C-alpha cells in the first residue's frame, strides 16, 4: 500500500535501510514532504518515516510538519493513513486535535458539516500549506458518491461538495456525470450496481480427470 506516484531513489534507499533512524536525515525527508505539498503528490511511507523519527527524537518534532502530514493523509480517505499517522504521535497539539475533528467528519461522511467547519478560518489555515487540498477532498467525496449512488438530487450534491453555479457544473462534467433537471445521474459502475450475485463453484475438467480415471478401473 505504498500510495506513491514516483518516489525518488534517494528517498527509497533512505527509508529501506537503517538510515531512516538517523535524525540527520530529517531535513531530507521534510524537504520531500514540502515537495509533496507543493506538487500534489503523496507518499505515505516517507511521511510515516518522519513521524517515526519524531517519535524517537521528540525534541526535533515540528508541529507544522505533523499538521501537513496529517492534512495530506486526509486526502487519502478511505485509506486508514490518517490513523496510521495518529498511532505514531505521542503528543496531541491543538492543530492535531482540530484535524482529527475534520477527519472524523469525513469518515462519517458528514460532508455538509465538514465544509461548515472547514470554512472557519482556524481550520482552513491548518491545511493552507497543502496545495490543492480542497480539490483533493472534493475528489474523495465524488468517489464516495460515485460508489453509492446512481442518481442523486443536485441540491444534495451541491451541499456535499460545497460548490454552486458554474463551478458546480464544471465539476459535474469533469466527473462524467450528467445532470437532468435537478437530478445528477451517475453512470453505472461496478460499485453502484445492486445486482444479486451467486458465487458458484467453477470446476474445471482437469480436476475431474483423476476421478474419471478411477471409474475406468472398475
Amino acid at each position, binding site marked *: 500500500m505504498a500510495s506513491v506516484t514516483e518516489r525518488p531513489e534517494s528517498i527509497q534507499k533512505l527509508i529501506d535501510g537503517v538510515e531512516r533512524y538517523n535524525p540527520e536525515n530529517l531535513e531530507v525527508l521534510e524537504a520531500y514532504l514540502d515537495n509533496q505539498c507543493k506538487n500534489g503528490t503523496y507518499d505515505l511511507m516517507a511521511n510515516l518515516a518522519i513521524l517515526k523519527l519524531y517519535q524517537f527524537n521528540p525534541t526535533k518534532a515540528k508541529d507544522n510538519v505533523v499538521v501537513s502530514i496529517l492534512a495530506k493523509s486526509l486526502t487519502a480517505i478511505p485509506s486508514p493513513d490518517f*490513523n496510521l499517522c495518529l498511532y505514531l504521535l*505521542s*503528543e496531541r497539539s491543538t492543530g492535531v486535535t482540530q484535524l482529527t475533528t475534520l477527519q472524523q467528519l469525513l469518515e462519517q*461522511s458528514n460532508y455538509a458539516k465538514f465544509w461548515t467547519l472547514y470554512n472557519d478560518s482556524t481550520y482552513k489555515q491548518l491545511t493552507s500549506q497543502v496545495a490543492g487540498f480542497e480539490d483533493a477532498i472534493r475528489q474523495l467525496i465524488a468517489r464516495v458518491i460515485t*460508489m453509492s449512488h446512481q442518481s442523486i438530487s443536485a441540491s444534495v450534491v451541491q451541499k456535499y461538495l460545497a460548490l454552486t453555479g458554474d463551478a458546480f457544473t464544471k465539476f459535474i462534467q469533469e466527473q462524467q456525470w450528467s445532470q437532468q433537471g435537478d437530478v445528477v445521474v451517475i453512470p453505472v459502475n461496478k460499485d453502484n450496481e445492486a445486482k444479486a450475485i451467486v*458465487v458458484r463453484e467453477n470446476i474445471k475438467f482437469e480436476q475431474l480427470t483423476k476421478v474419471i480415471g478411477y471409474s475406468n478401473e472398475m
Partner: protein
Amino acid sequence: MYQDTFEDDDLIAEVELVTQDSFTENNDLDDGFEAEVSLSAQPSSVQIPDGVRNFILYFYRCVLENNVYDLHSVYDNSFNKLTNKYYQKQPWPEAEVIAPLVKDDQVFLTLYRELYYRHIYARLQPTWEHRVRSYENYCDLFNYILNSDGPVNLELPNQWLWDIIDEFIFQFQSFSNYRDRLRNKSEEEWSLLRDNPQIWSCYSVLNVLYSLIQKSRIKEQLLANKNGGDVAEAAGEYGARPLYKMLGYFSIIGLLRVHCLLGDYMLALKMMDNIVLNKKAMFARVTACHVTTFYYVGFAYMMMRRYADAIKAFSTVLSFIQRTKQYHSRSYQFDQIAKKGDQMYALLAICVALCPTRLDESIHSQLREKYGEHLFKMQKGDEALSVFEELFHYACPKFISATGVNLNKSPSDAFIDPNQNQIKIFIADVSNQIMLPTLRSFMKLYTSMGIDKLAMFLDMDAEELKMHLMVLKQKSRQLKWSNGDVLEGDYVATSDLNFCLKQDVVHIAESKVGRRYADWFLRNINRCEDIVAELEQKA
C-alpha cells in the same frame, strides 16, 4: 499464501516437527542427574545439589561439542525439570558460583546467565540490579556473536535462539513499562533512570535486531530463495552458518513485534517482505515463533483496517493450534501459546463484528463458545463500544513508548500512555461504524425501500441515514491480499450486501455463495481411493 486444504499427511508432517521439539525419550539422561541427589533438597547459597552440578557439566559438554540435538533436550526438558524441582521460588545459582565447574568459560557463562535471568523474570520479581545486569549480559552475548573476528563456532538449538530474541524483546518491553509507571517511584529510582538512558534504550534494541539481520544477510537469502537464485552465495560467510541465519530470521520476526509495540504497523508488515506465510516457512520450525508471527501480522492488519486479511491470519494459526494441541500440552510453553490463542480469539471476534465473514466450522464454534455473547453485544446496541474496548484491551500487546516519559518533568505533566493512545484511536474508528450491523440486518430484509421509511425504522433522520449508507459503502471495500508481499493487496468488495441509492430510494441485493459440493466430493473421493489402494496393497 495459505495452503488451507490440510490433508492427513500434512498433519503428520506437522506432528513430526512438533514431536521432535519436545523429545522426551531421555529418561536415562534424567536418571543420571537424579542418581546422586544430595540429601538436602534446599540448596544453600554455596552448596549446589549434585543433580544440578551434573546437569551443568553435561550442559557444558554439549555446548562445547556443538551437540545441538542433545543440547535441545537439555535446554527444553532437563532445565525445566530441575527448575521445578529445586528452584521454583528462588534463583538458580549465580554464574560465579558455577564458574569453577566450567573452567570460567565466559561464553558458556554468558549463555548460562541468559537462562538465569530469564528464570528470574519468569518466576520471581526482577529488581533494578537484575534488569541492568541482564541487559549487560545480552550486550555481551550479542557482542560476542556479532563482533568477534569472523563467525563464532557455536551451534544452538532453534528453540533457544528464538527464546533469546523473544526474551530480549520481552525484557525490553518489561523495562519500558516499568520506566513509565512513575507514580510510585522513589527519588533514587528516578535518578538511576535519569543517569542511565542507554539501559534498554529503544535504539540499542533496534540496533541489535538490525545488525543480526545485516550480518546474516537474511534478507538477501530470502530474496534469492523467492526468485530461485543462489541462496548460498547470497548468504555470505556469516549467513551460511545456521546460528546466524536463524538469529537473523528470528530478528525479522522480532522487528515485526517491536514495530507493532511502537505503533508503526505499516513498517511492521514491511519487515515481512519476501516471507511467505505458509507452513513451510522457517518460522514454523519453532511453534512459539509461528504463533507470535501470526499474532502480530494479524494485529497489524487489523489496525490497518484490513479486517479480511486479519481474519484469515488468525483463523490459520488458530486452526494450527487446535490441531496440534495434544502434542503441545507437555511443552512448558503450552500456557503461553494457549494465552496467545485466547487473545487471538478476542481479536478475531472484533474483526468478525466489523467485517462479517464466513469462518471455518471448528473455529466458528470455538469463537461462539468463548465470545458468543460479546459478538452479540458488539453488533447491537448501546454496550457495543465498551465491549470492543474490553476485548481490545485484553488482546492487544503491551505497547511501549519510544523514549518514555520525560524524566525531567514532574509526573503530573501530561504524558500520553501509549496503550491509551492506541485504544482511543481504534475505538474512535469503531464508533464510526457502530450502526452498521443494525443497518445491514435491516437491509437484508428488503430489495428496495425509501430512505424515509428506512430512517423511521432505524429511529434516525434521513440525512443521518444517508451518511451511514455512504459509510457502509466505503467499509464494504478493503485492501485484500491475493499474492505477493504481505503489504500488497487489491481493493475488493468484502461484503455480501450490495446496494445503491437512486435519489431517495435504496436498492439492495445480496450476493450468495453457492454450496461447494464439488470440492468436498473430489477431495473425499481421492482420499477414499487412497485408502482403498493402501488396503489392497496390504492384502
